[in-house]
């Protein structure tokens, strides 16, 4: 977005054959009224967001203190609910109430180049009302990102956060969203993301593919750039399969099934599709 591109309109570099489209886009973009940058409004909004973030951090810390206290008492001989309740009364009641913790499912595990990696998904059940949605919204701050713009958008929708951990590195978010009308619900619907296995390998080969598919899908085929493929099959109901075996799996509270496949060394993601 450098200023000098203001006059280039995208026709300089990657794909001259689509320069005509770039021209039309530039023409259409000129339609917008630029106006004056509302710096003061941005500043106010930014400060509000920052203040909210601090408030959430404080509330979460309080909730954790309250929770740890209760657990400690419950673990003591003779500990009971009333003592737990006493602990809770000593801590100012946090605004985070009626939040059901998310259900976590491990979707896949493996080892590459001596480094362990794993992918998990957290699914939050749908809040029923504004109060629950607000509480869930605040609790989700721990992820550093939220799947919707405001708490009320969570009402009636369950949300998911897919996380990937590699080696000793930090766990990082890969994908997040709410289950809504765009969620795969039939046939060959599929949503996937392909990323490097090692989060530090920015721009590295996209070897890790994570996707969601309709519960009816029986087989997914990941096609790699070298022409080879990996087929994943649905884990039969009431059976469990080790997470280091690539497969189509359910996740707790998730209305869709999930798959994770890894490209062989030396190649990377080309496509993925439901094949049965």
């Amino acid at each position, binding site marked *: *977005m*450098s*200023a000098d*591109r*203001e006059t*280039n*309109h*995208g*026709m*300089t*570099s*990657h*794909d001259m054959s*689509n320069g*005509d*489209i*770039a*021209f*039309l*886009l*530039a*023409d*259409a*973009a*000129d*339609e*917008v*009224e*630029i*106006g004056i*940058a*509302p*710096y003061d*409004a*941005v*500043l106010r*909004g*930014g*400060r*509000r*967001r*920052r203040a909210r*973030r601090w408030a959430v951090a404080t509330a979460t810390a309080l909730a954790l203190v309250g929770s740890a206290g209760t657990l400690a008492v419950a673990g003591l001989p003779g500990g009971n609910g009333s003592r737990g309740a006493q602990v809770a009364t000593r801590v100012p009641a946090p605004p985070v109430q009626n939040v059901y913790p998310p259900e976590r499912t491990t979707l896949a595990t493996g080892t590459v180049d001596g480094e362990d990696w794993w992918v998990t998904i957290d699914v939050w059940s749908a809040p029923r009302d504004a109060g629950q949605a607000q509480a869930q919204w605040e609790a989700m701050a721990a992820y550093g*990102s939220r*799947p*919707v*713009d405001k708490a009320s958008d969570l009402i009636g929708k369950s949300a998911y956060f897919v996380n990937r951990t590699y080696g000793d590195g930090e766990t990082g978010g890969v994908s997040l969203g709410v289950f809504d*009308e*765009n969620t795969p619900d039939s046939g060959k619907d599929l949503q*996937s*993301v*392909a*990323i490097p296995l090692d989060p530090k390998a920015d*721009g590295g080969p*996209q070897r890790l593919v994570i996707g969601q598919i309709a519960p009816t899908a029986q087989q997914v085929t990941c096609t790699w*750039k070298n022409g080879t493929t990996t087929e994943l099959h649905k884990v039969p109901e009431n059976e469990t399969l080790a997470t280091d075996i690539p497969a189509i799996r359910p996740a707790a509270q998730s209305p869709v099934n999930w798959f994770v496949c890894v490209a062989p060394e030396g190649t*990377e*993601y*080309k*496509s993925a599709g439901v094949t049965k």
Partner: protein
Amino acid sequence: MGDRKAARDTEFQSFVIGRWPRLMRTAFLLTGEQHAAEDLVQSTLEQVYVAWRRVGSADDPEAYVRRVMINAHARKHRRRLREFLAPKDDTGLVREVADTEDRIARAEDRSSLLAALAQLPPRQREAVVLRYWEDLTETQTAEAMGCSVGAVKSNAAKGIAKLRAIPGLAEMVTQGGRA
């Protein structure tokens, strides 16, 4: 400490004022509507402000801003866009040959292109706008969209193919717009 904060604020202000026009144009292509574009850019910059200490000193603050904007767009305009921009009459995207008056024709072209963009699924729209308006490489686009380069190629190719398949647009394209 106070001086540093003041310096950061000044830096952020310059960033906002300097990038506002470009961000507005990109947001307009993504959202197809003036007020939605303003909302998207403002909300993006508010988020950037919160992280400015880190973002401002990064090598490429633009990349962060793009990522924030695309995330916000993906969340907010997933479904509503198509409804909002869908042609209100029954002519759809197939329209008669444009008027002879160049100005009117240009306005119609823009409108057609925006309507055509609105028909694209959000990811295809994002890929087309980032690749062919923002002039990003496939790798940069993938970073902004939080997906693979392969997904960018696929989304951009499908988006372009759909745009080219629209009769009105194909005509505009062969004329190189109506400059």
